[in-house]
């Protein structure tokens, strides 16, 4: 019975069908002889089936829906009695705070170390977006979701930048079609989350420096 603890640790992936064939055979051989592990596997299978059922019924809403939901909730009456300048400052903090948790580890996202809400410039006043940075092994991955960007013309593209003062490091480039939407992931160095800001510029030549055509920008917040 010395195998018992090791086999017991494999029962979760076993009921999920996630073991290698040789491991699966080992577990099945053990289950034939061990009533307590059979009972444990039965219990875990119930949890697995419920979870699989939930996963089947969950669907990721469009990334901008959360912002629309929060923006459209009716404001509390009490807030209207506050002086307007206080409201403006509080609202600014509130929006930053709400958007800072947009990509908080959750049921359907998960693992983000830092995130930024992207605010539009005059060049794309309807645009918006979110950037999240998460650890992947020894490196980072940046996920960009943006909407409302003007479609790229021929040989035009957008570039995502990590920004600190006047320093800019490119995190990757992308194009946008008629939908104006993009959802892309870029590899990033392990220190990507140490930059205070991110920004997106429109580019149309081979100059590696950032152009002055800023489309979106935002501050990175640690999560």
């Amino acid at each position, binding site marked *: 019975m010395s195998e018992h603890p090791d086999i017991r640790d494999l029962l*979760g992936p076993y009921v999920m069908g996630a073991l290698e064939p040789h491991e699966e055979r080992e577990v099945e051989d053990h289950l034939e002889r061990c009533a307590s592990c059979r009972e444990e596997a039965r219990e875990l299978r119930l949890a697995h089936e*419920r979870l699989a059922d939930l996963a089947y019924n969950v*669907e990721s*809403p469009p990334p901008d829906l959360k912002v629309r*939901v929060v923006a459209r909730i009716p404001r509390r009456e009490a807030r209207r009695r506050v002086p307007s300048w206080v409201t403006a400052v509080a609202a600014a903090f509130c929006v930053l*705070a709400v958007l800072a948790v947009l990509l908080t*580890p959750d*049921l*359907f996202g998960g693992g983000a170390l830092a995130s930024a809400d992207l605010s539009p410039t005059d060049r794309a006043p309807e645009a918006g977006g979110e950037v999240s940075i998460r650890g992947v*092994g020894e490196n980072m991955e940046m996920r960009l979701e943006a909407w409302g960007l003007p479609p790229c013309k021929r040989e035009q593209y957008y570039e995502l930048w990590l920004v600190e003062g006047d320093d800019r490091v490119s995190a990757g480039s992308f194009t946008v079609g008629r939908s104006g939407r993009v959802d892309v992931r870029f590899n990033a160095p392990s220190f990507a989350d140490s930059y205070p800001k991110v920004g997106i510029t429109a580019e149309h030549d081979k100059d590696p420096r950032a152009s002055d055509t800023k489309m979106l920008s935002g501050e990175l917040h640690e999560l």
Partner: protein
Amino acid sequence: MDRVEDEVLVRRVASGDERALAELYDRYAGLVYGTGMRYLGDRETAEELVQDVFTSVWKNAAGFDPARASFATWVYRITRNRATDLIRRRKARVQTVDDQPFRESGETDPSGELSRNFDVAAALSRLSPAHREVLVLAYFHGFSQREISDRTATPLGTVKSRTTAALRALREIMSLDE
């Protein structure tokens, strides 16, 4: 980071905390949206359902009584009722236009499956972050145990034993709630 209980977040929503509403959105919007897609059949109406449900949570949070039901049960009822309203509204509209009966089951969640899903979502939100992470990556992102190991920089053996422990913890929470 410790997970704040749903019921604590509802209290914060009642006092006007939009961040708390955003956190509840993170936990349940996927299920509400999925419910909309399943029962209402199109993205636009599913988005309307999400908007309606979370606006209702915002407006009625002060009346939520955790002694009577969990937040998951409460938001499930709101979702079911709003989905039924949207089905009826669309049914009336379609009959007016086409003068044909609308093909619809007429009842949202007759088998109770949707209710169970909300309970499981609530149980999942109560797991430790490490346990929740392995289950979310496996079930909601479809990653293999090895891929989870690579993505989280965790030894493969640890991922397997953690997955087992996470399923066990989930089962225990669900048993307590039953």
